[in-house]
């Protein structure tokens, strides 16, 4: 089911990237970012109703129920990185619009 969500997110993101309107790019990138993060999360193998990845003092007891912790760390990193990039991209779009006065990408040849 989550795969469908991922698929939809990718499709919508790409659709946005292919628009001529400048603002859609940022939406597309946000969608793609979410889709990719979900992809990492999903493909790593989900354990339904998984426990948070915290260890009690007796690590052995809770271990089987833990959801995979590494992808979570990866996603965390990825989220923050994409935030930085998105912030930059937003500013770039804003500046481009200011300098060129265009919002139609096709006119920004």
């Amino acid at each position, binding site marked *: 089911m989550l795969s469908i969500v991922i698929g939809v997110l990718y499709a919508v993101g790409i659709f946005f990237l292919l628009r001529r309107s400048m603002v859609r790019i940022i939406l597309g990138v946000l969608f793609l970012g979410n889709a990719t993060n979900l992809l990492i999360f999903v493909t790593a193998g989900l354990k339904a109703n998984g426990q948070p990845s915290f260890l009690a003092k007796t690590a052995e007891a809770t271990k089987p129920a833990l959801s995979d912790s590494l992808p979570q760390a990866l996603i965390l990193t990825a989220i923050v990185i994409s935030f930085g990039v998105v912030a*930059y991209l937003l500013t770039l779009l804003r500046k481009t619009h200011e300098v060129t006065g265009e919002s139609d990408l096709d006119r920004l040849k």
Partner: protein
Amino acid sequence: MILTAILFAILASCLPFLFMKAKRTQGWLVAIVPALLLFGFLSLDTVNQGNIVEQNNWLPLLGLNINFYIDGLSSLFIYLILGMGIFVFAYANGYMKSYPGKSRFYSFLLLFMAAMLGLVSAGNMILLFIFWELTSVSSFMLISFFHDKEGARKAALQALLITSIGGLSILGGFIIIGSIVGSYEIQDWIAQASLITSSKYSTAALILIILGAFTKSAQFPFHFWLPNAMVAPTPVSAYLHSATMVKAGVFLLMRLGPIFGPTDIWQFVLPLFGSITFLLGAFFAVVQSDLKRIFAYTTVSSLGALVMLIGIDTDLSIRAALMFLLVHSLYKGALFMLAGIIDKRVGTRDIYLLGGLRKPMPIVTTITTLVLTSMAGVPPLIGFLGKEMIYEASIQVPVVAPYLITFSILGNIFMVLTSLYVGYMVFFRKEHHWPKQPQRAGISMAFGPLLLASASLLFGVLPQASIQPYLQSAIEAIKPEHVELKIKLWHGFNKVLLLSIATVFMGSLLFMFRRITVPFFVTFYKKVFTIHFSDRFFSIIDRFMRMNQRKADVVQHGYQRRYLSTIFLFASILLWYIIVQTWGSRSAVQYDSLSWVLAVICLIIVGLSFMSLPARLGRVSVITIIGGIGYSVAAIYLFYGAIDLAITQILVDSLTVILLVLVLPKLPRLVAFTNARGVVRDMVLATVFGSAMGIIAYTSATNPAANKISDFFEEFSLSIAHGKNIVNVILVDFRGIDTLGEITVLVLASLGIYTLLKFKQS
């Protein structure tokens, strides 16, 4: 030793800059270099002491070594290169006197000489290729010596492009042969000749190499660069375009003769193209009016004769080829120099403007007459010997002899006509239109042609004593098991002599009726040869560039979204290809247990995504949708127990929303630009790609790897890393470097935003 000599020659190309002060004698000073080298190489004496092999490792890994191999053939070429070199430098001393940048000229001429020496003495074929390209490059610089003239630039470009097509193709050919033999040494190649010719790739290699030799030696249909290269200063024409560089192709063919000589392709292609070039060159020479172009075309013609002779590949033909090579170098070098003298002294090279130079320039007249006689093949000059041998060799060929003989005779007739006509027009007719009053030529300029002409005479009268041993040892290099051939000026009254006489007679006859014949040939030329190869060459280049311009406009159109569509299109194709390929191999499918909470979240996300699609969308709804999706994704994380992730997602999402709130009002509203068709197309593409990603996600989610490295983290997070929150431990300890990189990204991004917003435009 040989390496030292060639390095010396290369380094010597810096010398002219040292002699810059010696304005009057620069050429003479530079001429010392070839003189020294000639002395050195003469002392090697391959005629009596046999072949010389010198080996220096360079890149044994690639089979590329600085190995030299000097046999009789190389020696002959070396003497030619250096001997002509002396004359040319001496000549240039006078000719180049008044030009600025002549140090550069001498320098490149010396570099060229060094490259040429290397080319003929290289034992490693890749080394030969290196020198081959060096000759092309240095000749490019020499042809475009008058680089501010467009004609010079174009001609140089043409020459370099044509010869470099050939260069690349011989490189290809060499590498193919090299991979058959496992070595690039010419000796190994000759030793393994049968292995090479029996390989199925040898034909391809041979054709490539022949192509290379043809471009360099100006064979039809690549002949046209040579006449155009006449824009070069005359010493260059005399040196490169008569005696040395254009002979490099001939040299290469002679070198490879022992290997490919017996093959059918060799014996078919070379005589065919050689004879065509022979005839066409000679004919084109008749209809030209510029002295240098006339000589250029006769050069083309002679090169054709050489290639034809090499292709016949009998003992006699090789002997003829070598003889003719020598003959041609002597008279053609002299002729170019003389043309240069006339050009300098009278101010034009047009034979229809020149005339009656017999009186004001007696010495030049004498020399030129002598040399032209040699070109016409009249005894006792050496040209006669050359011509005799060509007939002798052509007659002996089985099957195609009649054709070759016809071509040869016709070619030679035109040659005779040209010689007579030029001599008459320039020196002996009465009327003239001189741009300036002719003066006598200086000693420096007359020195070269004089000696060369005397050599023609001397070698013709006494071939046995002067050139026989050198030719003999050169022949042995190509035809190891051949019988000794004597060269005599007079060898009885036979068919060959008859042909010679007939040729001269026919030529003279045509000359007698020059008022009819020459104009006839000119009109004939204009009617028949409407295709000018050279113009065609440039128009092809122009068209090629325009085509590329169009292609560049089509491919690199500047529309970002089409670039992206291309990227996604290819990505989809690749991914779907893989999905289809691996469809059968998936293992048992496990369904993830459904939960209604999850289902609701998923529905929300999908719903929001679709809500965002309409083209016109208020800013508020955009922000709401983005925020909503972000929070829903966070909910999914939470559902699966990834608390840290969920919190971060929520926070980052909130910040993104704040950013959007700040920036969106500054950006234009969302409006539709594309028409319905574009929307449909993009939707299809997006769906195709999205579904591929979905399937991949599904497949890999249901087939997770058995043991993952994250097990380790769960085990040791507390015990060694002292942390219960595994995610955090991974972030700051196990994979701390990632985090370090990540905050660097953040800092750099903030710098970027700073530069974008703070820097005012200049």
